[in-house]
């Protein structure tokens, strides 16, 4: 599919913003939705809506089938088995569920969880809190000069007490890509499992949980062109089988008495209550859409745009670009205009139709390390083109001139 045709699949991209062409470069926050996803959600509600599992009528059977088909589509995206995919509300819930359930199983005094100071708060806080509650230690990998987590650095902190290594695949601030396969080997050699925050990788590159030897992988529907309020946790089947439920209630039980209960097999034992069926259907449609476009192509295109943008921004005098000094392997570019707060930058870009994120990106420890209270972040996705890069660069250059002028 050529780029113009692909862009036309996303209805919102054709709209103007503040009288300017919309330049949406905040896909690391959330992605725009293609017609295929909007249609799938609508079709589910119009044709198949009923509660899953419990109905005996044909309509309910179709709803259940839609939900389970979606699970299979999401599983296929990351090369997992359908039974290894738990539907959640998103990456944050996936990581909380994992930390609570698996943490209850393996963490206690004398054990530790290894993570990094560059994590999104959602891959730091669940481990921090479960470690506190269970008397386990939380250890941090030293980042290298580029802010990267290397297998060597992980090797320096893991030991026989390590039960979980929890790391982001792609940093949402720096855009660095972690060598997950090599780190999996380090974690497994120490007898630990590897939990990966895939929020910024699964939507943007081919992720194969078997080839990378990942034990747990958390990701969100809305960042991969699916609806909000839906996400997934992949867990290796033999690990999920051992894990206790976290949410008790309807749908997840086998047999209940007043004094005890038995629970369904994984993944259903983790999905108490009526799930977000339409969300799952939309996420399944998004998984299929991304595979049709091709994740290899998506990855190389957005990395190319990010490299163009980083180079262009570096050429503007008075702009600082963060992240790798060499080639970028993801679509994230973080920057500041010297002497101008990132929020002021974002407001100025907004006036030019350019949507960027500004702030601490839910990564306060990393921001302290960068010595920046806040930064602006542009993040590219499959529907962005060279015009978006140019519009961003022009807007940054004119914002810089504007603030130079008013600051007189």
């Amino acid at each position, binding site marked *: 599919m050529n780029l113009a045709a692909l862009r036309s699949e996303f209805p919102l991209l054709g709209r103007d913003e*503040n009288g300017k062409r919309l330049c949406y470069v905040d896909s690391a926050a959330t992605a725009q939705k293609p017609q295929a996803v909007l249609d799938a959600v609508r079709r589910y509600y119009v044709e198949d809506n009923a509660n899953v599992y419990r109905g005996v009528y044909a309509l309910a059977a179709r709803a259940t089938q839609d939900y389970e088909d979606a699970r299979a589509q999401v599983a296929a995206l990351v090369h997992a088995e359908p039974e290894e995919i738990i539907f959640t509300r998103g990456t944050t819930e996936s990581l909380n569920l994992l930390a609570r359930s698996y943490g209850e199983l393996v963490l206690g005094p004398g054990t530790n969880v290894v993570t990094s100071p560059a994590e999104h708060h959602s891959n730091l806080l669940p481990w921090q809190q479960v470690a506190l509650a269970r008397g386990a230690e939380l250890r941090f990998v030293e980042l290298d000069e580029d802010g990267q987590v290397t297998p060597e650095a992980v090797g320096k902190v893991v030991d026989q007490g390590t039960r979980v290594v929890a790391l982001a695949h792609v940093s949402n601030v720096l855009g660095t890509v972690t060598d997950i396969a090599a780190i999996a080997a380090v974690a497994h050699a120490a007898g630990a499992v590897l939990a990966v925050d895939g929020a910024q990788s699964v939507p943007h590159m081919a992720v194969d949980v078997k080839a990378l030897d990942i034990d747990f992988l958390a990701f969100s529907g809305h960042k991969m062109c699916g609806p909000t309020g839906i996400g997934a946790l992949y867990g290796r089947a033999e690990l999920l089988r051992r894990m206790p439920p976290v949410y008790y209630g309807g749908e997840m039980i086998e047999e209940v008495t007043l004094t005890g209960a038995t629970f369904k097999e994984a993944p259903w034992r983790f999905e108490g209550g009526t799930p977000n069926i339409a969300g799952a259907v939309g996420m399944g449609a998004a998984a299929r859409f991304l595979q049709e476009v091709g994740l290899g192509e998506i990855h190389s295109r957005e990395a190319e745009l990010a490299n163009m943008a980083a180079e262009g921004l570096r050429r503007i005098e008075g702009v600082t670009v963060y992240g790798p000094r060499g080639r970028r392997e993801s679509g994230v570019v973080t920057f500041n205009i010297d002497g*101008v*707060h*990132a*929020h*002021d930058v974002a*407001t*100025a870009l*907004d*006036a030019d139709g350019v949507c960027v994120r*500004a*702030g*601490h990106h839910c990564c*306060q420890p990393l*921001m302290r390390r960068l010595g920046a*209270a*806040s930064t602006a972040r542009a993040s590219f996705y499959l529907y962005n083109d060279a015009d978006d890069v140019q519009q961003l660069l022009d807007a940054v250059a004119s914002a810089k001139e*504007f*603030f130079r002028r*008013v*600051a*007189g």
Partner: protein
Amino acid sequence: MSLDDVYRQVVMDHYQNPRHHGHLTHPTLSVGLHNPSCGDELHLDLLLDEDGVVRDAAFEGQGCSISMAAASMFVDRVRGKKIEEARRVVASFKDLLRRREADRAILGDLEALEGVSQFPARVKCATLVMNAFEQAMDRVEAEGRDHK
């Protein structure tokens, strides 16, 4: 919407040359506020006398030009004023940003921030200092009740 409406010269002047920046030696009370969504931080010191007058005030913090300029303007405006009058400044400013009828005369330099009303996401920046002030006043009132 226009950037020039927001980033007026007087706004940038307060941002770059903040008035009453720093700490008071003997404040009656201090409030620290943190805006978790953007990371802005603000610390407000107030010296109140028994007649309910803001004898002195100072602020320190880090944040965008709008939050810091608003803090400078607000502190400058309420120094020497009675608490009720300072509260009227807050109320009028919030009216202004909601595009309602506002008592402009009481606002002083704060009126220059009117353009922020065009950028809803930035209203919380402009009102950060006032939220700190209101928190301080709630504390004063609560303590007053306890002493009765």
